[in-house]
């Protein structure tokens, strides 16, 4: 048998053999891939309110922590740093103070932090630890919510429980004992056009 004959034989044989094989999930709507994709999309949509509050948490942390913890002792950057914020990714730690059992922070609306001018800001809040956040006393989110949503620390590489500030939100962020998070700015405040 020549190489050409062999190749022809292999090609014909493989085509005939494999063409008879039919997979069990030819319909997209009935496939497990479709269900998994739908779940991914659903989780992505659920992240939006978390994003809004996470950004609010950042603002709260920067605005309030200085007042509560004493500006000289905290590692909170000045609000101006967020307002300009092009280099915000260089601000890895916003709050780290393990001595406080709980820190309650409210947005105070400092003129230098013009929330309404920000259309988007990306911040990472940890899944681990124990913290909660509420906006105008309405809905509370917490690290437990994130975990319940399926976020894990392993997700951090490609999914942040983060982003999107809606102007005018006045959130309250509470860090519980042992749960002082490290909030990391991933992307700067973007100002609307």
């Amino acid at each position: 048998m020549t190489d050409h004959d062999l190749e022809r034989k292999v090609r014909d044989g493989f085509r005939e053999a494999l063409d008879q094989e039919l997979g069990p999930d030819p319909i997209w709507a009935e496939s497990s891939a479709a269900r998994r994709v739908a779940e991914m999309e659903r989780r992505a949509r659920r992240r939006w309110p978390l994003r809004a509050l996470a950004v609010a948490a950042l603002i709260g942390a920067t605005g309030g922590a200085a007042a509560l913890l004493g500006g000289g002792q905290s590692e909170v950057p000045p609000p101006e740093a967020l307002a300009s914020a092009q280099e915000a990714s260089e601000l890895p730690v916003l709050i780290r103070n393990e001595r406080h059992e709980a820190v309650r922070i409210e947005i105070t609306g400092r003129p230098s932090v013009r929330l309404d001018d920000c259309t988007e800001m990306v911040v990472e809040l940890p899944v681990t630890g124990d913290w909660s956040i509420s906006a105008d006393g309405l809905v509370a989110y917490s690290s437990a919510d994130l975990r319940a949503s399926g976020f894990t620390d392993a997700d951090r590489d490609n999914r942040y429980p983060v982003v999107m500030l809606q102007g005018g939100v006045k959130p309250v962020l509470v860090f519980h004992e042992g749960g002082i998070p490290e909030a990391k700015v991933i992307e700067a405040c973007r100002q609307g056009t």
Partner: protein
Amino acid sequence: MAFRLEIADFGAFYERTYDGAYRTALGIIRDPALAADVTQDAYVAAYKVRDRFRGEAPSAAWLHRIVVNQALAALRRRRPKPHTSGIAALMPRDDTSGTITRLTVYEALDQLSARQRAAVVLRYYHDYDYARIAQILNTTSTNVGAMLSRALDRLKVALDSDQAVTADTGAPNDD
């Protein structure tokens, strides 16, 4: 960019390409149940990275690269597990509707390494050229040529021995 539209409707893309993807996985993995799972994993992976598909190559080739990677990864995870059952065991020896039997094809595939099976399926089932196969397998065209040459040598032995069997048993032989 021309091929980006092919995946715009992902559900339609799935249904249009599913058979080819499943057969690619099956040819490499040789276990129908695992091949079906790997195919699903591949589509989920493809969906996640669909924004990165630049559309410079046909979407099927892009998908097959993902399927091949998923299949090889699945085999690495479950190693070692020699294939002794599955499709081949279910097929009668005298299934001779073509040039060579399905059983012969699968037994011949079993003689190859996973990467060789991938190269053979991509070359002789999908008709990809060496450059495309090299891209999919993340190697060079020269290596693909060498891989296919070694694979053909092994397949020749397997096919020759099958012909001897069919001759002994009086089964039809097209040579």
